[in-house]
């Protein structure tokens, strides 16, 4: 096992373990912080795979921006602090989720393991530097790059529109309490009737 592979294995184990903790932690904030560990370790994985710029973008965008957004969202939705047992769906759904996760991971890993076999790669760090990536991005990938900026603009405008909410004039006012005259008719006051009043 070479030195690079050792570093890769360390970062990979850290990322995998932190990912599992991020989706199983019973503290809401801890889950977000384990996500930080996962994404940071993945940046290390990219570095060992010879993708320097991708690792830096990962650190900047994911650890710097996405996680901050997630933590802000947790704060703004008054996420409970401390140990919570109501973060999970009912037991049946949890069981189905773990079956789906295990079978999905097994399928993906199994197929890819068979496909790659016993092969090794020798990443070239010179390929992942800023210059080759920049040349590829702004020459060959110019159109997708522009489309990405359009997507970001659309996401920005969309987030603004969504968080502003529907305008007051178009929102239907909530009807006041039903007057008593409306509740005549057969004296069947089951819950179904109460629901079907409107």
């Amino acid at each position, binding site marked *: 096992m070479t030195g690079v592979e050792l570093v890769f294995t360390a970062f990979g184990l850290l*990322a995998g373990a932190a990912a599992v903790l991020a*989706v199983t932690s019973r503290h809401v904030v801890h889950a977000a912080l384990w996500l930080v560990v996962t994404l940071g370790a993945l940046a290390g994985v990219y570095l060992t795979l010879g993708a320097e710029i991708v690792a830096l973008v990962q650190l900047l*965008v*994911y650890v710097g921006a996405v996680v901050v957004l997630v933590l802000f969202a947790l704060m703004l939705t008054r996420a409970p602090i401390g140990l919570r047992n109501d*973060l999970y*769906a009912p037991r049946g759904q949890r069981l189905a989720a773990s079956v789906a996760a295990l079978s999905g991971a*097994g399928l993906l*890993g199994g197929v890819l393991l068979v496909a790659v076999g016993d092969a090794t790669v020798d*990443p070239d760090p010179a390929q992942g530097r800023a210059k080759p990536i920049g040349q590829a991005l702004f020459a060959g990938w110019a159109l997708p790059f522009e489309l990405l900026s359009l997507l970001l603009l659309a996401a920005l405008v969309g987030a603004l529109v969504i968080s502003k909410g529907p305008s007051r004039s178009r929102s239907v006012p909530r009807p006041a309490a039903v007057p008593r005259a409306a509740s005549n008719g057969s004296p069947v006051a089951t819950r179904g009737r109460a629901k079907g*009043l409107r």
Partner: protein
Amino acid sequence: MIHLAGPVVLAAALAGAGVYGLLARRNAVLVLIGAELLLNAVNVLLVTASALPAGGLAGLAAGGTRPAADPLMPGQVLAIVVITIAAAEIGLALAVVLLVYRRRSSVDLTQLRELGEASPTYQENPDDGELTARATSPGPGSTGALPSVVEVAAREQEGASQ
């Protein structure tokens, strides 16, 4: 030299964790964490593919180990594209989550059963008729529970005699 089994197993583990987080969590923000993990599994595979020799897996079988000298760098550029899309996605998704929280005071996905604007008869917990009863029977004797058949009949008689 990196054995390719490592990145592949890592991507599979990340994808599994992401699927579990998407399906098993109730808090909408924690569901988004699962989505992020799924996107990162894709990224690991893309970056790994950028280190493959010319011809990809077939080139590996032919014995090459040096990465392909493709000037377009598709693996790493696509990884950056995925990261950008993930940033756009999470910004939009968190706006939706915050709107849901403002409207319903909850981001518990098991309680969000109606799409769109909450209808007047909407209630978070269908087993609890309290909300509906208060809205539909604001009579003086209403205790908050659903009125019994006798109560309603008496109230209607009272209304008829007036």
